[in-house]
């Protein structure tokens, strides 16, 4: 078993550039390269299995997960999410009125680039925009209700491949690039980037956790974590990831986080939604 600190030391010492002169600014090509990196790194893992995170990489953990999936502990949150989703707003409208197809089976299309605002709109943001447009107070992005709602919406999209598009708009490309930069930039006292853990060391143990591969990592969101004893949103995961490397987390749904979600979802295009997921 390799240990991260060793990997990190190597990282710190090898700061020389190793830039290929290939297709910068070509997200489609980058997504292909991203995928083939993981496929090569884990030749025995089926492409669609990457969405199961550490369970795709560790047999002992997979058995525990499969046992729990027989009657998953997130069942209650999922039910709560459905109840919340169908609940009528004070003005008589519903979440269903804010989304195509009544919000059912559409999770795989988020985040989206909104041409009007020129910004990335995640599902969490869209849910709160829906609430506010209907006179309801916004939910906490890291709270249980948002987690339950997105769990239910993900559940109705299970098996549907991520279908994220970058429209022909320089602002959309800039958002993707910004998300990519955030993904690879090292931060926090530990000097880890998202990629340090989820590109270079997936399958390795960091403390007790087996690190999930970045490919497909958002397909499983939101996730029920045993550590949390509950369901948590993508926002919550980003915030805790930052904290774990001793970086002060940004505001949930800040531009960087939304762009990061855009990038990570885009490079997992074609892989099925598996959320809500369960993780240690």
């Amino acid at each position, binding site marked *: 078993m390799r240990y991260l600190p060793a990997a990190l030391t190597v990282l710190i010492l090898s700061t020389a550039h190793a830039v290929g002169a290939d297709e910068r600014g070509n997200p489609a090509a980058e997504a292909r390269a991203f995928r083939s990196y993981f496929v090569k790194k884990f030749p025995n893992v089926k492409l669609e299995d990457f969405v199961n995170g550490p369970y795709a990489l560790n047999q002992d953990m997979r058995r525990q997960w499969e046992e*729990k999936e*027989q*009657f998953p*502990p997130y*069942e*209650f949150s999922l*039910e709560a999410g459905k109840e919340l989703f169908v609940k009528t707003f004070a003005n008589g409208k519903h979440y269903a009125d804010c989304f195509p197809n009544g919000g059912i089976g559409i999770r795989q299309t988020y985040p989206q680039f909104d041409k009007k605002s020129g910004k990335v709109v995640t599902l969490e943001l869209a849910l709160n925009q829906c609430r506010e447009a209907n006179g309801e107070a916004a939910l906490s992005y890291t709270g249980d209700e948002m987690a339950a709602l997105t769990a239910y919406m993900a559940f109705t999209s299970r098996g549907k491949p991520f279908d994220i598009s970058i429209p022909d708009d320089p602002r959309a490309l800039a958002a993707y690039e910004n998300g990519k930069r955030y993904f690879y930039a090292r931060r926090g006292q530990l000097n880890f980037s998202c990629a340090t853990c989820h590109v270079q060391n997936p399958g390795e143990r960091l403390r007790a956790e087996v690190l999930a591969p970045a490919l497909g990592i958002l397909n499983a969101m939101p996730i029920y974590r045993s550590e949390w*004893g509950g369901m948590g949103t993508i926002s919550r995961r980003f915030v805790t990831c930052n904290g774990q490397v001793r970086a002060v987390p940004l505001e949930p749904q800040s531009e960087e986080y939304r762009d990061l979600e855009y990038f990570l979802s885009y490079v997992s295009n074609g892989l099925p939604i598996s959320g809500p997921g369960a993780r240690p």
Partner: protein
Amino acid sequence: MASSIRIRAIARDGRTEVQTLIQHPMDSGFIKNDKGEFIPAHYIRELTFEHNGRLVFLADWGTAVSKDPYVKFAFQGGNKGDELKVGWIDNKGETDTTTVKIQ
């Protein structure tokens, strides 16, 4: 309010397999909250299953059963449509019961 108890009871090959998931904190009394105070123990102590009025399974639980506890067992007999009555009581005297039909 929705029941705290979820049951899947399936009759097959002359036996009935029962899986149960219960929404309950199962606080052990050994965990501290954000303020550093111990969260008092709060856990299910007894869980019973009756098939057509006959006790088929009795669980006595301590604080080491996981949050939102799960248990699976099987008994001989049981037919589709039979009633299975499930109930629990915790250390604070709270209870819940539900009756489901075997599938």
